[in-house]
């Protein structure tokens, strides 16, 4: 009896093709769209990238961080310092800021990894607070009240807005593609094995600690990129805005709505979050309260999230990262076959 490993289906290929078309259409938006659409897209892109990184940490690496805003804020401030103080083009400063955040995550991980489970979460929060309070003491970047990004002053508004938009689109596509390719690679398989069972993964020779560190560094890179991008678009930064725990709160909400531990989760969650923000944010405290309640309800009763629900209804994974072992010689429709999930 033969066996084949299924890594994509006709449906998932269609989703991928649809995504490519959507990106091409989106890329032309500055030619026909309104500038408010571009601003909204940039903002939601930052939330999406941040949420994807949180999903990678909590959903795959088992690290429920409440302190990723440390790297978000750091990315923003590094971009601002490079632009305002050293004359670097802010758009070029985005990848540099992300790299600095990734570099900073190495010593930070030495501290944070000394704590496990829930205490890891609060420990990362303390570290983010230390970042916030420390930067509030640096007067060169405006101290506690913050400062404005002056490096983009010479550029006209429309050029600035469409460039920011294209950079944001590139960042989102790159992040989704990177996470997708990574999860489909051998290392990604190892990470999914860790998600399913740390002990079993370790017993199969996976270096769990090394893998977790890698995920932590990648997540710091992504969060730093999101932060730099956000403040290029926002033009004004302050320690409270850059290092606020709200970023993590929204990331948790986005991921729990879309489905944790699945790549399409944050994408779907971010779309829902955008829609809710647009139509309900006038309700202020009640809206925030509702988001908190929704996160609780999703966690207790719908752990698979909207992404998992959609995948189940469609009958295939939209962005498959699993390797499904199919027994039997002739290829038949996937659903009717006995499938064994490859857990390695």
């Amino acid at each position: 009896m033969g066996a084949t490993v299924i890594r994509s289906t006709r449906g998932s290929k269609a989703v991928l093709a649809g995504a490519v078309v959507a990106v091409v259409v989106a890329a032309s938006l500055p030619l026909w769209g309104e500038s408010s659409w571009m601003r909204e897209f940039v903002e939601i892109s930052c939330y999406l990238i941040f949420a994807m990184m949180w999903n990678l940490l909590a959903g795959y690496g088992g690290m429920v961080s409440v302190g990723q805003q440390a790297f978000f804020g750091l990315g923003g401030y590094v971009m601002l310092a490079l632009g305002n103080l050293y004359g670097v083009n802010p758009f070029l400063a985005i990848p540099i800021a992300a790299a600095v955040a990734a570099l900073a995550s190495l010593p930070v991980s030495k501290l944070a990894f000394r704590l496990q489970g829930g205490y890891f979460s609060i420990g990362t929060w303390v570290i983010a607070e230390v970042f916030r309070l420390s930067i509030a003491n640096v007067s060169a970047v405006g101290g506690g009240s913050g400062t404005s990004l002056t490096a983009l002053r010479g550029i006209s508004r429309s050029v600035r807005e469409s460039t920011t938009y294209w950079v944001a689109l590139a960042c989102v596509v790159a992040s989704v593609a990177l996470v997708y390719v990574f999860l489909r690679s051998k290392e990604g398989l190892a990470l999914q094995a860790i998600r399913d069972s740390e002990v079993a993964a370790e017993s199969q020779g996976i270096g769990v600690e090394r893998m977790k560190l890698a995920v932590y560094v990648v997540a710091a890179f992504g969060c730093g990129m999101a932060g730099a991008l956000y403040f290029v678009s926002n033009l004004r930064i302050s320690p409270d805005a850059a290092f606020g725990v709200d970023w993590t709160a929204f990331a948790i909400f986005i991921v729990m709505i879309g489905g944790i531990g699945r790549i399409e989760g944050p994408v779907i969650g971010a779309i829902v979050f955008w829609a809710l923000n647009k139509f309900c944010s006038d309700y202020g405290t009640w809206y925030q309260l509702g988001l908190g309640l929704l996160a609780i309800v999703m966690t207790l009763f719908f752990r698979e999230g909207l992404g998992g629900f959609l995948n189940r209804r469609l009958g295939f994974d939209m962005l498959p990262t699993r390797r499904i072992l199919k027994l039997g010689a002739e290829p038949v429709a996937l659903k009717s076959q006995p499938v064994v999930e490859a857990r390695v």
Partner: protein
Amino acid sequence: MTETLIQGLLLGGLYCLFSLGLSLMFGVMRLTNIAQGDFIVAGGFAAICIAPLVGGSPLLAGLVLLPLAFGAGYLLQRGLLNRTLGKDPLPSLVVTFGLSIVIQNLLLEVFSASPRSLESGELSTGSLSLGGDIVVGTLPLLIFVAALAATVGLQLLFARTPLGRAFRAVSDDREVAELMGVRSAHVYALATALATVLIALAGLFQGLRTTVSPADGPLLLLFAFESVIIGGMGSFWGTFVGAMVLGVSQQVGFGFDPGWGVWFGHLVFLAVLVVRPNGLFPKTKG
């Protein structure tokens, strides 16, 4: 110098009350309550609401508040938090984080963002002389004594009573404890009820000593957490000492610059994490 030390220790007394509940819940069921700080703030607001109904006395308000807190804690654990327990810490973290957001916004809606405090009458102005020119306020001293009593009480409860034995049993191995006839759902709920009483007491004192406002919760959580980790997990005396270390550190930081107190406390916490990752008096590991 002596002044800073004494003020720091008295502040530590308050932090000890903040952190005992966190330590208790983590110790018994490995549950990290991210809403700990918001519970404290909610306790403070509850005391502020109750006080006028009982003639303004903080003592009577406390007598009404604490049994209510016990009941609320029990129901919260039975109705909600028990569902989140398991090997994976994620559900309990996300649920308590969600609770934190819900409580903050609910308090903001009901009480607005301005800080409130609890009228204490002569309690807040009174002071005691400790010989020489050292004078301490009656209220901070009362808080310190309450923290000491709570620590001794919890230690005795865990070491000497059947309930304490049940707490330790479910903490060590839930399934075996259940086989021995321990109803773990009930025991967990009692642990949270007890923790909530301590939290409400901490909130009452916080409202008496300074102010409470809806956005204060997260910072109080961090203080509670730092006390637990500095002291070492699994030991109430460790938590007590950790709170003292944090209180003194912050007071020393305040001495340098009024804006540095909290920051200095964080740095001392990180230093302890580097030098003694299991805290000063470790007993159990995460």
